[in-house]
Every structure is written in structure tokens, then in C-alpha cells.
């Protein structure tokens, strides 16, 4: 299990290969890559600045991974999240999960992303032609996270 916060870009393919190469009992690897779209809410986005809370961010992500491990039968998990200034089409985040079985890997990977979106202290500021604006949290992200709570 590993969690990394960094300003540099990452090589998603290399990270994925390394994760699956570590063990021989992996049947499934599910990964998510989040990218900066050039358009958000109808406005052209020229760049995105990602701020975070050093110290808390790592703990929040580790707690999310450890919840995923408790709930699903996963072999390994990796989260890489970038901070700083990013341009359109750049990679923001990678979440990769390995498991013996695909269903478990899909569930754990989506759970990690939904939790990260609502619990990890990152904030995005967008620059468009109209100036800069902090993105607001989406109700749809809260709803996505709610699905994972026992009902």
C-alpha cells in the first residue's frame, strides 16, 4: 500500500506495471486516472491549481486505503495525487488496486475515488478567461460517497 503526494507528473503505465509485478496471485488490476478537462461548467479552463493540507492529506488517504483493505479482498493499492499548477489534459490522480478477483478490485477502486473526492483535503482553483475561481464541492460527490455507507 502506498500513498504519494507530488508536484511532478507520474507515469501511470509504469506504476500499474510495477504494482502488478510485485505478486503472482493477482488476477485483476483496476485503475483510475483523473485528468484536467479543458472545459468545466461551459468555460474553457486554461489551468488548475491544486492546494492541499500537508500532513493531513497523507493521513486521510492512508485511512481511505485501510478502509478499502478492511472491506474488500485486495492485494495492494496505490494512490498518487498531484498538487500545484496543472494544465488542461494533465494527469491529476492515479488510483490502482490489485486483487485476485475483478469484482473486488472494481469496488475498492471506486470506493477509494469516491472517498478521496469527499474526505481528502485537496482544493482546486480554476483559471478561465473570466479569471480564477475556487471549485465548489459537488452534491453528486457526496451522494457517490454515501452509497458506500451501510444503510
Amino acid at each position: 500500500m502506498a500513498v504519494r503526494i507530488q508536484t511532478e507528473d507520474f507515469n501511470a503505465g509504469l506504476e500499474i506495471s510495477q504494482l502488478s509485478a510485485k505478486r503472482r496471485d493477482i488476477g485483476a488490476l483496476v485503475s483510475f486516472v483523473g485528468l484536467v478537462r479543458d472545459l468545466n461548467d461551459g468555460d474553457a479552463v486554461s489551468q488548475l491549481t491544486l492546494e492541499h493540507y500537508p500532513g493531513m492529506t497523507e493521513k486521510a488517504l492512508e485511512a481511505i486505503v485501510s478502509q478499502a483493505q478492511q472491506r474488500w479482498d485486495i492485494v495492494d493499492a496505490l494512490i498518487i495525487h498531484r498538487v500545484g499548477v496543472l494544465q488542461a489534459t494533465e494527469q491529476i490522480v492515479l488510483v490502482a488496486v490489485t486483487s485476485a478477483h475483478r469484482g473486488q478490485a472494481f469496488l475498492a477502486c471506486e470506493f477509494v475515488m469516491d472517498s478521496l473526492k469527499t474526505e481528502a483535503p485537496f482544493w482546486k482553483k480554476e483559471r478561465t478567461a473570466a479569471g480564477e475561481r475556487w471549485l465548489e464541492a459537488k452534491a453528486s460527490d457526496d451522494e457517490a460517497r454515501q452509497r458506500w455507507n451501510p444503510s
Partner: protein
Amino acid sequence: MKIKIFYFARLKETLKFSSEDLELPDDLDGLSLLKLKAHLANRSDVWRQMLMGKLKVRGAINHALVDDKALINDGDEVAFFPPVTGG
């Protein structure tokens, strides 16, 4: 009691600073996050609007997300920030 407070994103830009060390009288009933917000809100309208206004503010104590009822102890690291938008 002495605490450290961090501010992030919109809050940091509003204040034009990102952290402060604060000394507070000991509160016998315990200092909740809500009481701390109310204390800071008394500083000015800008503070009131920022912490008790329409836009939601979340709080953390010692790197853990907490709600308004959570109690703060001497030496704690407190943080205020908008709902998160990473990923």
C-alpha cells in the same frame, strides 16, 4: 491553552495568511470547534462571514475531519477549510 490554526483555499485568500498561534482562556466546559468559530467570528464581519456565513466551512483537529461538537485541547492543531474538491 495554546493552539495553532491553519486556513486553506478560499479562507487563506480571504485572510491573506495561512496560520496563526492562538492563546485562549481555559474553558471549563471544554472548547468545541463551534465555540472557537464563534470566538474568531467576533473579530470582524469578514471573519463572521467566512466562518459562519453561507459557504460551508469544514474543520479538522490534529489532521482528522471533525464536526462542530468536537473538543479542542491544549496544543492541538486546528484547521478550517472549504469542502474538499480534489481527485
